[in-house]
């Protein structure tokens, strides 16, 4: 609960630790959303799959196996670098980082220590009106997953994840509060999803953060930093940073000093704990990987990546506002859009924004967005479904809007057709469905006028009290009578015309 309040607090958060300055830098490890692993042809896996079912001899580091770079991973990392306005290096290289652990089959992780794919860059945080500089972006391998069975005192190793491509995105220490750190991670997450390079799913572990925190008294140089490893939710990251800040302040206040450490985070106790000191820091014995030639990119390759870049969130927002949608409309559309599935290998799946764009082709964007947000999304929500469940094609939805706009189906009738389509998905034309349901609006003419007169009379005699009130000028009650007529006509008559007829009858009857 406390966290939620923090989140909503205005950007003046320093009141929590007056007189102190906080410096935060973040290393994000984002799994590349590629079909295959970084250096093998093995398909990548999801958490739901049985352990050790996505493993080739290379992934398990069988002696004699060799890596082969998956160019799709490079393309997706390039998209990230372009989105972050980084300097992409035409020549980058792979290095080995050595350590002994059972989740690292070969004894080294292939990464880009000495010549990363890209350096520099910036991530703007529009909600805070600030930005965070990016230091570098590098490609590397994910490790296997190890879990410890305390009861049986056994470590379980699942190699499904071993060798999946990761992008390590390192920020400069530009953040000054847990809230800024959170906004950075959320904005980065949305950006990665927008370009399709990662699904950025922290709960599923496809995006993880290491956070560097230091604290100093105002006016003094930055303090000693501590790194908190492996934070896997934005909420826990904020708690971890705050807890680490208080720890530093307490230490300094008590006359002590902060020592440079790598720390973990205990979610239950909401505090960090020491993993190792600087003195215990392992020497990773980095070495250029002798198996992998330098990664040489041509400017043409980068241009192609640039041209195939999906629209970035900022541009989408600007464009939607530009066609006349309200901030609120845009927020809804983009929030729904950000929940869309991220396709493999950069394939862009259709989300709410793309659906809107297609519908708005040749139609009034405001009418379209009302149908989408109020009716379609509203109906889906009442069915506990997300937009990905929407069975109505753009063509069908467009036809429905057109039929209503043309008066062929009334607004009420249109909503009935929509509900029907959600309950009974079909590819039949909306006109046919409306016809089958008897929901086509009655065409203007003597017959319709006669029928409307009959339904109005029925409504008045069925609801005498309401009729009396309406006669005295009660608008709201008049609407109730209109509703009754709509029901009697199954929504086939025009509401405004009905109102006119009813009013006429009531005045006459006076």
């Amino acid at each position: 609960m406390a966290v939620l309040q923090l989140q909503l607090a205005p950007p003046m958060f320093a009141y929590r630790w007056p007189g102190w300055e906080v410096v935060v830098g973040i290393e994000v490890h984002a799994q590349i959303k590629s079909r295959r692993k970084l250096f093998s042809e093995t398909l990548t896996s999801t958490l739901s799959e049985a352990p050790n079912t996505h493993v080739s001899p290379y992934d398990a580091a069988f002696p004699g196996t060799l890596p082969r770079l998956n160019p799709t991973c490079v393309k997706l990392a390039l998209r990230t670098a372009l989105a972050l306005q980084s300097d992409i290096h035409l020549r980058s290289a792979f290095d080995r980082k050595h350590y002994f652990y059972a989740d690292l089959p070969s004894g080294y992780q292939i990464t880009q220590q000495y010549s990363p794919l890209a350096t520099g860059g910036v991530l703007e945080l529009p909600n805070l009106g600030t930005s965070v500089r990016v230091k570098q972006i590098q490609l590397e391998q994910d490790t296997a997953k190890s879990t410890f069975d305390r009861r049986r005192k056994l470590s379980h190793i699942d190699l499904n994840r071993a060798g999946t491509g990761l992008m390590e995105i390192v920020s400069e220490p530009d953040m000054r509060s847990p809230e800024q750190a959170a906004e950075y991670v959320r904005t980065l997450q949305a950006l990665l999803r927008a370009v399709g390079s990662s699904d950025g799913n922290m709960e599923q572990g496809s995006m993880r953060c290491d956070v560097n925190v230091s604290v100093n008294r105002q006016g003094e140089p930055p303090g000693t930093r501590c790194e908190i490893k492996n934070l896997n939710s934005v909420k826990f990251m904020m708690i971890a940073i705050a807890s680490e800040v208080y720890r530093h302040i307490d230490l300094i206040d008590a006359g002590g000093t902060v020592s440079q450490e790598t720390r973990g985070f205990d979610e239950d106790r909401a505090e960090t704990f020491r993993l190792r000191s600087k003195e215990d820091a392992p020497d990773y014995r980095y070495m250029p990987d002798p198996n992998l030639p330098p990664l040489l990119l041509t400017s043409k390759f980068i241009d192609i990546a640039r041209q195939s870049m999906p629209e970035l969130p900022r541009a989408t927002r600007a464009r939607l506002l530009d066609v006349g949608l309200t901030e609120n409309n845009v927020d809804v559309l983009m929030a729904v859009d950000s929940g869309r599935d991220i396709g493999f290998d950069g394939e862009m799946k259709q989300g709410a924004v793309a659906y809107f764009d297609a519908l708005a082709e040749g139609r009034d964007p405001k009418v379209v967005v009302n149908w989408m947000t109020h009716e379609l999304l509203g109906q889906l929500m009442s069915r506990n479904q997300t937009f990905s469940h929407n069975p109505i094609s753009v063509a069908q939805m467009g036809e429905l809007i057109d039929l209503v706009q043309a008066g062929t189906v009334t607004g009420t009738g249109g909503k009935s057709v929509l509900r029907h389509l959600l309950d009974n998905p079909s590819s039949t034309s909306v006109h046919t469905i409306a016809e089958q349901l008897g929901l086509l609006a009655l065409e203007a003419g003597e017959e319709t006028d006669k029928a409307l007169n009959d339904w109005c009379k029925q409504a008045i005699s069925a609801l005498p009290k309401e009729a009396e009130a309406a006669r005295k000028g009660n608008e709201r009650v008049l609407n109730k009578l209109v509703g009754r007529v709509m029901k009697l006509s199954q929504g086939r008559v025009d509401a405004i015309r009905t109102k006119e007829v009813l009013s006429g009858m009531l005045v006459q009857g006076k």
Partner: protein
Amino acid sequence: MHVSRVLAAESWRAAVESRNKCINALIAVAPNTSTHGPSTSQTKSAKLEGLSLAVKDNIATRDLRTTCASRLLSDYTPPFDATAVRLLRDAGASVIGKANCDEFGMGSLNTHSAFGPVVNPYDPNARRSAGGSSGGSAAAVAAGFCDAALGTDTGGSVRLPASYCGVVGFKPSYGIISRWGVVSFADSLDCVGVLTHTVKGAQAVFDVIAQHDPRDPTAAPTHVRKRASAAVRKHAWGGEHTDGDLKGLRIGIPQEYFPAELSPPPGLHTLLSHLQSHGASLVPVSLPATRAALSAYYVLASAEASSDLARFDGVRYGQHVPPAPGTTASTADVYAHTRSVMLGREVRKRILLGSFALSAGAFDNYYLQAQRVRSRVRSDFDAVFRVPNALRAPPAASTSNPITDIVAPNEPGVDVLLHPSAIGPAPPLPSLEETETGKEREESLDTYLQDVLTVPASLAGLPALSVPLNPRSPHGDETNSDIGEGEWPVGVSVVGQWGADELVFRVGKVVEKVVREMKS
């Protein structure tokens, strides 16, 4: 054809059964499958139909254990064949067994093997070394167990045993034969090599396995191979060993390979003068970075070994040796214990040396310095060869035909270099005690000189062929233990520019022919 294959199979099996026990060249012998009918090669080209092949035990075979002659991997059978093995099997070769070697390819006497040393078959009673690390491969060919053997050469491991055992040994250009399935010792130096009786035989095997393999990221792409062959055709000597006249063949004699301490092997001067009298020019050349090359080699090979062998820790790969009960061991101790117990002394030494070279404080002064030396070694070679280095030719991204895009020849460069393969004939095997304590490597001058002869070509990735300088007459009396020092085999090496493997074979055939003429 079917019948002859079975007969061939029986003949090698008999030789192995009678002589392998004392030579110890093979550490695993293929089970008798002749009753299973013809091999799967029937539908393929079968260029090497019936060829019997021994495979060094650090090259993966799916049907035979691949132990790298290490106790640590004594139970390991890979789930796949190395690409070179697969190509040879597809061409009709049958694998007769796995050849002994120094553990993970580290050593030059084939004494660092969990299976015991290989005894030089030239005269087993004399108990001399077969050389290393591909000692079992060379000995298997020399003993007549097989037509050909695969070895690996990281710093001379094919050429040296070939020289000691009196067979032909070829280390190709780096990147020409796939390393898929070769258990890495030092990835940037490891090459699959071929050992046979004749140069022609070595070339036949080489031709089958010199294929681009997409599974080897260090494999030279096809267009680079073509560019190298085109450069050789255009700029190098174009003759054959069948020509009486060697006019135009320029042979470089690298002065650093003939130090004052070393007396050239008997026969070398005769060979050189014969070559000259046939019209070849002998050109003294200098490769000034040679001296520094050795230190660079030991730093780089050990650094890569410390990385490549990291997976052999008894948890991920290799037999686990639990620490003594009751001892409290950290995670690091658990790994260290297995590695200390199960890896041999030479391997442990190189891992420690390599780990140091990569440590944060040493990296710049050792590893990076060694890389700079390595690039000087390459430049040295490029400066003496007439054929330009296809790997350094301007990248031909913009031209439509990369093959024609060859830089001008280096005149007056040489076609090949020629030097002894070893500083002398096979030394006696050390006693068991000497092996355990490491005494046998303490004749440091010899070790140094020996490495001078083979390591530079490894650093530069060049093709190098060792041809026997004093071949035994066919079917010599092998029981005669009274062999004079001068009769023990010694080889001469032909070294060419990167990608000039075919030229090296051609000159190798010339040498082979001249050596025969010398004998008669």
